[in-house]
C-alpha cells in the first residue's frame, strides 16, 4: 500500500516535470507569461513531490518492507538504520531516483531565487533541466521502479508494479543486504558527492542552452553560473577523491586508483569541467573562446550522462548486456538527441558567438589557458578511447569480423582489456606538461615578452627540440625505457631543459629563481632519495610550481603590506579575501602539487611482498619487518559478520614501532568478504598490511600481503587543501549582485576578484 503510494507520487512527479517542460517552452514561444509562471510553479512542485517519493522509499527501507524488491535487494534486518537510509543509492532504481531528486532540488533553487533578475533565461533553464529530470524520473516510472513488489504466482516469485492476476504478495523474511563493500563510510558519502557534481553541472549547461536559444550569447550565462560550476567541480572532485580513499581502505589492493572504466566515467566530465572552469575566465575577461566554452559545457553535460550510462547500463561488462538492458539503449538515444540538439543550436548561433579580441602573444595568459584546454582534452581522448576500445572490439568481433573475416589480419576481433599501463604511459607526459603550464600561469599575469622578440633562430630551435622525440618514439615506440641514461629519458630531460630555458627567457626573473630553487630540490632528491628519472622530473615540476606560486603569494602580499601599511599576515589575508578566485585557484594548484607528490610516490616507489608465515615468524619489506603474533576469529551475530583479525608487531630497522591489526570480515548474507588493511601512516610512507582473504588463517599459518606506499599521504593532505582552495574561490562576494545585474554586450572586469 505504502509502496503503491510512493509509485503514485513518482508518476505525478513525472507528469508535473513533463508539464513544466512543455508549459515553459510553449509559454515562452507564444509569449504567454501566465503559462511560463505555471511552468515555474510546476517545476517548484517537483522537489516536494520527489522528496515525498524518496521519503516513502526511505521509510520502506528503514522499516524492512522486504515485499518491495528494491528493499529486499539492498537491505537486511542486521543493517544499522543509517546504512538502511544510505542504501537508497546502493542500487540501480534508488540511485536513479536520487539523481532526479537532486536535479529537482537544484532546478528549484535556480528558479526559486532571482526569477525576475534572470527572467529571460529561466524558462529555458526549466525546459533543459526539466527534460533531463523527466528522462530520469521516466526511467524510474517505466523501467526501474523502486517500488515494484514481489508477487508469488504460478510462474514463481517475480517483481511487478501492479499485482498480477492469480498472485499473492510475497514478503521474504529478510533482505539480501547491502554489498559489504558499500558499507564503508567513504562509500556512503562518495556516490552522493559524485551525483551532486554530476547534477550541478546540468545547471550551467541549462543556462548555456538558454543563452543559445534566446540569442543572448554574451558571457552573462557564465557569470550567472560561475558559482554553480565551481561547486559542481568541488563535488565531483571530492567524489573522485573519496572514491579513491574508499578503494584504498576497502578494496585491498594497496592502491587508490585502478583506471577502471567506472572511475574513468566520473573522471571524464571532471576533465572537461576543469577545462571549462579555466577557459570561461578568458571569456569573462577578454570576450574570447565563446564557441569553445559552449562546446565544453555541452561536452561536460554529455559526459555526465555518458558516465551515468556507463555505470548503469551494464555496457562495461558486455555490449550484449547493454543491448538486453532496458535503460541502456534509452540512455544512448538520450545522449545522442541532446548532443545533436545542443551542437545544432551552437551552429545556429555561431556568428553571434564570435570573439571580439585577438591574442597578443603565444605566451599570453589566454594562450596558456588554451594550451591547458588542449591538454585536458587530450587526457579526455586518452580516457575515452581506453573506455570505448574494448566495447568497439567486442562489437566488431560479432559484426565486421564475422562478415569480412579478412579484416582479422588488420584489427583486434575479440574483447580486450585496456588496463593501467596504457593510461599511465599515455597520460603522464600530458600531466607533466600541465604542471609546466601551472608553473607559467601565475607569471603570465605580470607582463611578459612576446614570442615575436624571441628570435627566429630560437623559435626554430624550440620547434626542433619539441619535434625530436616524435621520430625515435614512432620508430622504437615499443622499446621505450625510462631508466636513467636511456635515450628516451635523455630526450625528455633535454626537452624540459629547453622548455625551461624558454620560460626563463619569456618570464625573466620571475622564472629563473624558481628554476634554481626547483633544481636544488631535485638535486637534494637525487642525493638522498631516488635516482629514478621520472620521479626526479616529477619532483622538479612539483617544486617549480610550488615555488612560483608561493613567490606569487609572497610578492603580492608584501606589495600590499607596504602600500596599505599593513602587517604582512593581515595583508596576506586581505589579499586572498579580495581576490578569492585568483588565490583560491593558486591554493588549488598548490593542493594539486601535494597530490602529485603522493601520486608519484605510490606509482613509482610502491613495493610489495606476500608470504605465508606461522605465528612468531617474520616477513621483511623495505626497512620494515612484521612479526605475526596472534589471530582471533569471532562472530557478530546481530550484524551477520565473522571477523578474523591478526595482530602483527611492526619493526623498522629493528626498532619496535607498534602493532597493526589487519582483518577480514566475512558477511554471511551475501557470502562476501572484505579485507581491512592494518595501516601505519606517516608523511614518509604508509605501511599497509592485508590478511589475504583467500587463504586459511590460523596460528599455524596466515598469508599476509604487505605494501609500502611512499609519500601517499600527501595525496590525502592535498585533497584537504584542495577543498579549502575551492571554498575560497567559490565563497560568495559582497559585490556579486552589482556585477551580475549589469547588462551590456560584454562586461569588462573592474575587479581582480574576477580574474
Amino acid at each position, binding site marked *: 500500500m505504502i509502496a503503491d503510494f510512493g509509485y503514485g507520487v513518482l508518476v505525478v512527479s513525472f507528469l508535473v516535470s513533463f508539464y513544466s517542460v512543455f508549459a515553459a517552452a510553449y509559454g515562452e514561444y507564444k509569449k504567454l507569461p501566465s503559462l511560463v509562471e505555471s511552468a515555474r510553479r510546476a517545476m517548484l512542485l517537483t522537489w516536494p513531490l520527489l522528496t515525498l517519493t524518496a521519503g516513502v522509499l526511505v521509510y520502506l527501507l528503514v522499516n524492512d518492507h522486504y515485499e518491495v524488491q528494491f528493499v529486499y535487494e539492498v537491505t537486511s534486518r542486521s543493517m544499522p538504520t543509517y546504512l538502511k537510509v544510505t542504501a537508497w543509492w546502493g542500487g540501480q532504481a534508488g540511485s536513479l531516483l536520487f539523481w532526479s531528486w537532486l536535479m529537482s532540488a537544484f532546478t528549484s533553487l535556480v528558479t526559486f531565487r532571482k526569477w525576475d533578475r534572470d527572467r529571460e533565461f529561466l524558462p529555458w533553464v526549466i525546459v533543459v533541466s526539466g527534460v533531463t529530470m523527466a528522462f530520469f524520473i521516466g526511467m524510474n516510472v517505466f523501467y526501474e521502479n523502486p517500488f515494484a513488489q514481489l508477487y508469488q504466482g504460478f510462474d514463481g516469485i517475480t517483481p511487478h508494479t501492479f499485482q498480477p492476476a492469480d498472485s499473492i504478495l510475497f514478503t521474504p523474511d529478510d533482505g539480501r543486504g547491502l554489498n559489504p563493500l558499500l558499507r564503508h563510510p567513504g562509500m556512503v558519502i562518495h556516490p552522493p558527492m559524485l551525483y551532486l557534481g554530476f547534477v550541478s553541472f546540468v545547471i550551467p549547461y541549462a543556462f548555456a542552452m538558454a543563452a543559445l536559444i534566446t540569442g543572448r550569447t554574451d558571457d552573462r550565462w557564465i557569470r550567472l553560473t560561475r558559482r554553480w560550476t565551481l561547486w559542481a567541480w568541488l563535488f565531483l572532485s571530492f567524489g573522485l577523491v573519496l572514491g579513491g580513499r574508499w578503494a584504498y581502505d576497502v578494496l585491498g*589492493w594497496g592502491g587508490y586508483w585502478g583506471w577502471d572504466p567506472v572511475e574513468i566515467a566520473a573522471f571524464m566530465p571532471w576533465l572537461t569541467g576543469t577545462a571549462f572552469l579555466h577557459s570561461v575566465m578568458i571569456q569573462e575577461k577578454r570576450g574570447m573562446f565563446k564557441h569553445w566554452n559552449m562546446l565544453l559545457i555541452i561536452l561536460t553535460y554529455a559526459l555526465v550522462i555518458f558516465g551515468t550510462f556507463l555505470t548503469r547500463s551494464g555496457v*562495461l561488462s558486455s555490449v550484449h548486456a547493454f543491448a538486453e538492458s532496458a535503460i541502456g539503449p534509452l540512455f544512448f538515444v538520450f545522449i545522442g538527441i541532446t548532443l545533436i540538439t545542443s551542437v545544432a543550436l551552437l551552429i545556429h548561433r555561431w556568428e553571434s558567438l564570435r570573439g571580439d579580441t*585577438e591574442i*597578443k602573444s603565444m605566451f599570453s595568459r589566454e594562450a596558456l589557458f588554451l594550451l591547458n584546454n588542449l591538454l585536458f582534452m*587530450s587526457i579526455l*581522448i586518452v580516457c575515452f578511447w581506453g573506455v570505448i576500445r574494448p566495447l568497439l572490439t567486442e562489437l566488431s568481433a560479432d559484426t565486421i569480423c564475422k562478415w569480412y573475416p579478412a579484416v582479422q589480419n588488420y584489427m583486434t576481433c575479440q574483447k580486450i*582489456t585496456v588496463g593501467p599501463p596504457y593510461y599511465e604511459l599515455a597520460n603522464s607526459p600530458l600531466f607533466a606538461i600541465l604542471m609546466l603550464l601551472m608553473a607559467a600561469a601565475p607569471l603570465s599575469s605580470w*607582463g611578459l615578452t612576446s614570442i615575436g622578440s624571441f628570435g627566429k633562430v630560437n623559435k626554430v630551435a624550440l620547434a626542433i627540440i619539441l619535434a625530436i622525440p616524435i621520430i625515435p618514439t614512432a620508430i622504437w615506440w615499443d622499446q621505450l625505457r625510462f631508466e636513467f641514461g636511456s635515450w628516451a629519458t635523455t630526450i625528455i630531460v633535454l626537452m624540459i631543459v629547453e622548455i625551461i630555458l624558454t620560460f626563463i627567457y619569456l618570464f625573466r626573473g620571475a622564472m629563473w629563481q624558481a628554476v634554481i630553487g626547483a633544481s636544488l630540490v631535485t638535486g637534494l632528491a637525487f642525493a638522498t632519495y631516488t635516482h629514478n628519472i621520472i620521479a626526479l622530473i616529477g619532483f622538479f615540476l612539483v617544486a617549480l610550481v610550488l615555488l612560483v606560486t608561493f613567490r606569487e603569494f609572497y610578492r603580492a602580499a608584501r606589495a600590499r603590506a607596504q602600500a596599505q601599511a599593513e602587517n604582512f599576515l593581515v595583508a596576506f589575508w586581505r589579499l586572498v579575501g579580495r581576490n578569492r578566485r585568483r588565490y583560491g585557484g593558486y591554493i588549488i594548484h598548490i593542493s594539486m602539487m601535494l597530490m602529485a607528490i603522493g601520486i608519484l610516490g605510490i606509482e613509482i616507489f610502491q613495493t610489495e611482498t606476500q*608470504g*605465508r608465515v606461522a605465528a612468531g615468524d617474520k616477513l621483511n619489506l623495505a626497512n620494515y619487518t612484521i612479526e605475526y603474533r596472534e589471530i582471533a576469529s569471532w562472530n557478530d551475530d546481530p550484524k551477520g559478520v565473522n571477523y578474523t583479525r591478526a595482530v602483527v608487531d611492526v619493526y623498522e630497522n629493528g626498532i619496535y614501532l607498534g602493532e597493526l591489526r589487519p582483518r577480514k570480515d566475512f558477511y554471511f548474507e551475501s557470502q562476501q568478504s572484505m579485507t581491512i588493511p592494518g595501516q601505519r601512516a606517516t608523511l614518509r610512507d604508509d605501511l599497509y598490511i592485508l590478511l589475504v582473504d583467500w587463504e586459511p588463517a590460523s596460528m599455524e599459518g596466515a598469508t599476509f600481503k604487505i605494501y609500502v606506499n611512499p609519500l601517499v599521504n600527501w595525496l590525502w593532505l592535498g585533497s584537504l587543501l584542495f577543498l579549502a582552495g575551492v571554498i575560497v574561490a567559490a565563497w560568495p562576494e559582497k559585490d556579486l549582485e552589482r556585477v551580475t545585474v549589469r547588462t551590456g554586450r560584454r562586461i569588462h572586469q573592474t575587479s581582480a576578484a574576477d580574474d
Partner: protein
Amino acid sequence: MSKRILRNTQYAILIALMATLFGALTAFAQDSTPTDDEVNKIAKQLFCPVCESTPLDVCPTQACHDWRELIREMLADGKSEAEIKQYFVEHFGARVLNEPPNKFASYAVPAAAFLLGAFMLFRGFQMWMKPSQTGPVVPESEAKPIPQDEYIARLEEEVKKQK
C-alpha cells in the same frame, strides 16, 4: 696431536660439505616452488577472466586462486613470463592481458588527436594574432602589456617602487 688435527679438519670439511649441500638443496627447493611475489609479478599483468576489471593478483575468487597456483606450477616447470601470458591468452582470450596486444591502435588514436589539436591551436594562434600584426602600428608602450585589471596594475607599480 696431529691425528686429532687431521680428524678435526676432516670433520670441519664434512660439516662444510654438508652445509654446502644443504644450502644448495634449499636453494634448489626455493627454485622449484616459486614465491608468492614471483607469482604475483605475473598475475598483476593479467586480469581475472571471470571477474570484471579485477587484476588476477588481488582477485579473491577460488577460480583466480587456482589460476595463481597454475602460474606457480608453470613457473616451477621453467616456463617464462611470456609463455605463461600466452597460455592465458590462448585459453581465455586477449581480454586477460592488462594491455591490449595491438599497442599501435592504443596509442595512435590519442597521439593523432593530440597532434591534430596542437595543429589546430597553432593555426588558431596565427589567425588570432594576425590583426595586431597587419593593423595600425601601435606604440610600443601600449602594445606590450596585456590589459590588466587596475588592482594588478597598482600592485605592479608598488613592486616596481620597491626596487
